[in-house]
């Protein structure tokens, strides 16, 4: 009753455990992967990924990347990933600031195309929402 869970970022492998369930912040909404899940590839939105395994639950903050789900395993390739406890207010502020800047640039460069601007706005909103999940608030 377990799936092999791997969480890797470009710089290191963060986790490799036997998990019973993995909650993934997918681009189209959260999904929970358990054993026997249909093979799926989904992109990630900034959010909190929780892994339930025999030793308890681990939470990670993930930004960008994608998850590959098969019947027997879940691999998450996140562009940036950190254990929830390691995220400080300062880092979170940095992330939100980055998203805000990206939003501002998108507004400027794509004045007449709503697509990229909406994407950037969603990214920013997601980023701020992450704060709610980990108990930090975005500074203005």
């Amino acid at each position: 009753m377990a799936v092999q869970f791997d969480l890797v970022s470009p710089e290191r492998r963060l986790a490799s455990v036997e998990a019973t369930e993995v909650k993934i912040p997918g681009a189209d909404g959260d999904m929970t992967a358990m054993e026997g899940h249909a093979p799926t590839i989904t992109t990630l939105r900034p959010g909190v990924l929780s892994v339930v395994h025999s030793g308890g639950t681990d939470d990670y903050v993930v930004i960008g990347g994608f998850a590959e789900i098969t019947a027997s395993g879940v691999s998450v390739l996140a562009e940036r990933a950190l254990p929830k406890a390691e995220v400080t207010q300062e880092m979170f502020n940095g992330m939100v600031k980055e998203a805000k800047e990206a939003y501002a640039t998108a507004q400027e460069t794509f004045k007449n195309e709503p697509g990229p601007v909406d994407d950037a706005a969603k990214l920013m909103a997601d980023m701020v929402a992450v704060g709610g999940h980990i108990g930090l608030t975005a500074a203005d």
Partner: protein
Amino acid sequence: MPSLKDLKNRIESVKSTRKITKAMQMVAAAKLRRAQDAAEAARPYTERFNAVMAGLASGAAGSPAAPKLLSGTGSDQTHLLVVMTAERGLCGGFNSNIAKLARQTAQKLLAEGKTVKILTVGKKGRDAIKRDYGNHFVGHVDLTEVKRVGYANAQDIAKDVLGRFDAGEFDIATIFYARFENVVTQHPTAQQIIPAQFEETEGGESTLYDYEPSEDAILADLLPRGVATQIFAALLENAASEQGARQSAMDNATRNAGEMIDKLTIEFNRSRQAVITNELIEIISGAEAL
């Protein structure tokens, strides 16, 4: 013939050179281990990423709606060469080998009548290419202040490259770096990153995935990240190669210095003996003359 004092001074100076090269070799060895660990740690990500991308790309490659990063602009007129070298010298042929490969490629492309643009990463490569192709430079990324290359550095370079691609500044991008094989061998390598190329997955028994949001959206989201991933992998290989090359270069230098000290010491002893013999002859012949 140099005097005894001169010889003594030279021996001292070569000895201190040997101390320096020895120290540099040991530092390079320690840094190499760290660089290799970093490259090792990045491998799972790159491998999984490329596997998934290869699957996605083979599905989308044929369709006319495929993103430009995958299918290309339809032309191969303008080439961007991203030459990645070290910021520092004293590492054997590392920098010059990469620069040489880049120069050869540039020469070939120019002979074919293509336009060549060069983006340099790392000061040493820039200096090496400047003389021949300085007028093709379009930019430079300075990593002097960076102690350990991180993914963020790769992202910055990728952003620069992608920005130029979106602006239509080039059709094909190739990165130049040295692939690390072992301490004595590093292969200068050219790798095309735009349009993206993926190795065909073997076996062909691929799982049918559900894609969320959609296959095209995922591909469009991941292709730019793929550029960053490939640049990051190349930067890490480069870092390991640089330290490997420096370690073997400094090892050679240390050994050469050792040989030189031996030779100079023999010469020193011989001259000293010659001086003594000379003095003895003078005394003896002086005594005999009496």
